């Protein structure tokens, strides 16, 4: 309009607008939905997802804009100067309810057997905005209930509300067009693209983004109701990327891992392989200290371990080796590095870990260890490699070894006179060891991993350690005491603070606030 002042151009331009009678100012380029979320105004939605494009197909997010004849999808419409928006006028509430009624028209209302119940967006929106009895007394359109889509996923076509979020996850995150819509109208259904299966490495993200219970993970299907689970923030131990996750557990058993949004690391996603890493926490665990192959008390086992290590050290520290693992937390690494330097007086500290694997340019790293960066920062330049270890074992330079962490295939351990193993799992090293001590795993401890970007990220204990397992730093401190050390650690935070003080590249890392598991019963819909 003539005489109106134009908003200044450029990316930093702000728009002034009115939402529900209140004036607000937003940066240009936001959508109305995002603007409403910023100021805490609730607009329900199904098809919009912060990490995906917005096709505006569900029409659940309609709002009224002054001067527009029809309600407008807020997820798709950018904010503009002098806009006047209403999110709670009678007309908006009415179309909102009508859209829900439309979505529910052919919905099977399987809630009692639906895995999503309790965290379902359709349930939540229905109770928030509709909560009336169905007016439909005709029969519903029936579709297939159990469709096997791929390695990890089962689809219930009846429950699908056709929001296309899963299709967009495949197209935009995994970059594979595995899913498509077929047919039209009330016969429209989600299916795999001709000749394809939903087998991309990010397929389980579709289950998370599905606002309803249409997509279920075979791994989790029917095992738990959402409200029985407790959520603990943590970091995926699957590779060096360090995707932020939530551990969902119940009664000390992990049931699933879910990505936790972090724009700097994993955005909203994680890979399928990482999701299943929790299984190992409950498999083949070493649950009690072992001395000469028989279960023993912690005191006896620690005493014997200290005796073996001390006699090897006193004979000749150069034949005593310490193997650390890139699977260990920063705290465990720091405590054992200190033990090796101050009380075992050996320079033969080796770094082992899981072998390299496949990678892509989306999330997955070739380095399958979560804490390689941390281990290198803490161990410093004197660390020897797994190849050195193999060589030293073969040439017989080493006669005694302290093997810490999950180190697969370190080499032949037969030539050693004494072997002390700290590990979480049964296996060849435990069988060969004089003393084996059970180590708590990543989901059982407070601690931190440093990912490939150098970000120090926190783990929080979600479940109690298996059997008598203990965190590595605590075992290091006990071993240290038995070897005459004066230092003690009361908790992981103390080790972390000391590491941050001593290790230059870790200074400034933050332990963060303590987190305890939260029951999902109180967490509402996760959509």
């Amino acid at each position: 309009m003539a005489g109106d002042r134009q908003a200044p151009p450029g990316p930093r331009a702000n728009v002034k607008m009115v939402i529900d009678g209140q004036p607000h100012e937003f940066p240009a380029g936001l959508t109305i939905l995002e603007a409403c979320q910023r100021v805490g105004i609730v607009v329900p939605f199904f098809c919009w997802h912060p990490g995906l494009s917005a096709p505006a197909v569900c029409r659940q997010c309609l709002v009224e804009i002054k001067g527009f004849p029809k309600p407008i999808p807020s997820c798709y419409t950018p904010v503009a100067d002098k806009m006047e928006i209403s999110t709670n006028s009678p007309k908006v509430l009415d179309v909102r309810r009508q859209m829900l009624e439309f979505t529910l028209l052919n919905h099977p209302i399987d809630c009692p057997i639906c895995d999503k119940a309790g965290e379902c967006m359709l349930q939540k929106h229905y109770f928030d905005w509709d909560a009336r009895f169905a007016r439909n007394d005709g029969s519903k359109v029936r579709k297939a209930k159990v469709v096997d889509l791929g390695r990890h996923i089962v689809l219930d076509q009846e429950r699908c509300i056709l929001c296309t979020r899963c299709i967009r996850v495949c197209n935009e995150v995994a970059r594979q067009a595995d899913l498509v819509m077929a047919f039209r109208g009330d016969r429209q259904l989600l299916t795999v693209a001709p000749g394809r299966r939903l087998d991309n490495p990010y397929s389980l993200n579709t289950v998370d983004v599905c606002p309803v219970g249409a997509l279920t993970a075979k791994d989790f299907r029917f095992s738990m109701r959402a409200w029985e689970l407790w959520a603990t923030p943590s970091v995926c131990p699957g590779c060096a990327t360090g995707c932020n996750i939530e551990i969902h557990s119940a009664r000390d058993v992990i049931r699933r891992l879910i990505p936790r949004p972090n724009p700097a690391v994993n955005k909203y996603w994680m890979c399928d392989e990482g999701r299943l890493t929790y299984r190992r926490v409950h498999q083949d665990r070493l649950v009690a200290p072992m001395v000469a192959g028989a279960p023993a008390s912690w005191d006896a086992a620690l005493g014997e371990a200290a005796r073996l290590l001390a006699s090897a050290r006193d004979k000749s520290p150069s034949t005593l080796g310490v193997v650390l693992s890139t699977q260990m937390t920063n705290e465990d690494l720091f405590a054992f590095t200190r033990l090796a330097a101050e009380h075992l007086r050996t320079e033969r500290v080796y770094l082992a870990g899981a072998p390299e694997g496949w990678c892509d340019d989306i999330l997955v790293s070739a380095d399958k260890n979560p804490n390689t960066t941390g281990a290198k920062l803490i161990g410093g330049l004197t660390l020897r490699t797994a190849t050195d270890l193999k060589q030293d074992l073969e040439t017989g330079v080493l006669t005694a070894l302290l093997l810490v962490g999950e180190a697969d295939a370190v080499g032949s351990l037969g030539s050693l006179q004494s072997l002390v193993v700290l590990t979480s799992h049964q296996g060849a090293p435990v069988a060969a060891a004089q003393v084996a001590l059970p180590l708590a795993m990543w989901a059982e401890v407070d601690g931190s991993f440093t990912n490939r970007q150098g970000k120090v990220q926190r783990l929080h204990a979600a479940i109690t350690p298996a059997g008598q397992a203990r965190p590595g730093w605590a075992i290091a401190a006990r071993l240290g005491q038995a070897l005459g050390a004066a230092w003690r650690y009361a908790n992981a935070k103390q080790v972390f603070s000391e590491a941050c003080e001593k290790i230059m590249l870790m200074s400034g890392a933050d332990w963060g606030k303590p987190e305890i598991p939260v029951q999902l019963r109180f967490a509402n819909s996760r959509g």
Partner: protein
Amino acid sequence: MATVVKIVNRPAGWKRRSYLWGTMQGLGVTFGHLMRNWPRNLLGRRAQSDIVTLAYPEEKRPYPPRNRGLHRLMKRADGQVRCVACMMCPTACPAHCISIVPEESEDPRIEKRPRVFQIDELRCVVCGLCVEACPCDAIRMDTGIHAPPSTRRADAILDKEELLSRGELSVAVQAGEGLFWRERK
């Protein structure tokens, strides 16, 4: 803490001291009741007597109509368990005495059912919330049967088979549309 001892002196005088009179007074009351009640009792007119106790176990007081009794699991038309392992009842149960382990059913129209269904009757407070919570009319407490006595705790834990053994066909329907509403065209 100091112990407080309160000394009550015996009443004075031998009459009161011997408690003889008081005892006889008490016996008199009992004897009076006896004389009033036993002839009526003998003539089968117990209702007219003053006796308020019951001659258990020959006599039993009827339970109030809201009595619940042991749980049972209801059945589908083909005899399968109606329960879909939705976990509403263990969620509602204030005594945490229901344990269910779900499994997938081969029948895609059922999908989910309980593999294990146990109720610990020793812990149960007979509140009936599980019945209220069930969306499928799968669990009921309408048998009126007392939890039976047991000598071992494990015997008081009812399993799926036992709960089903008292079960009957339930034709309760979802959403008021009638049985097998899914199949109707």
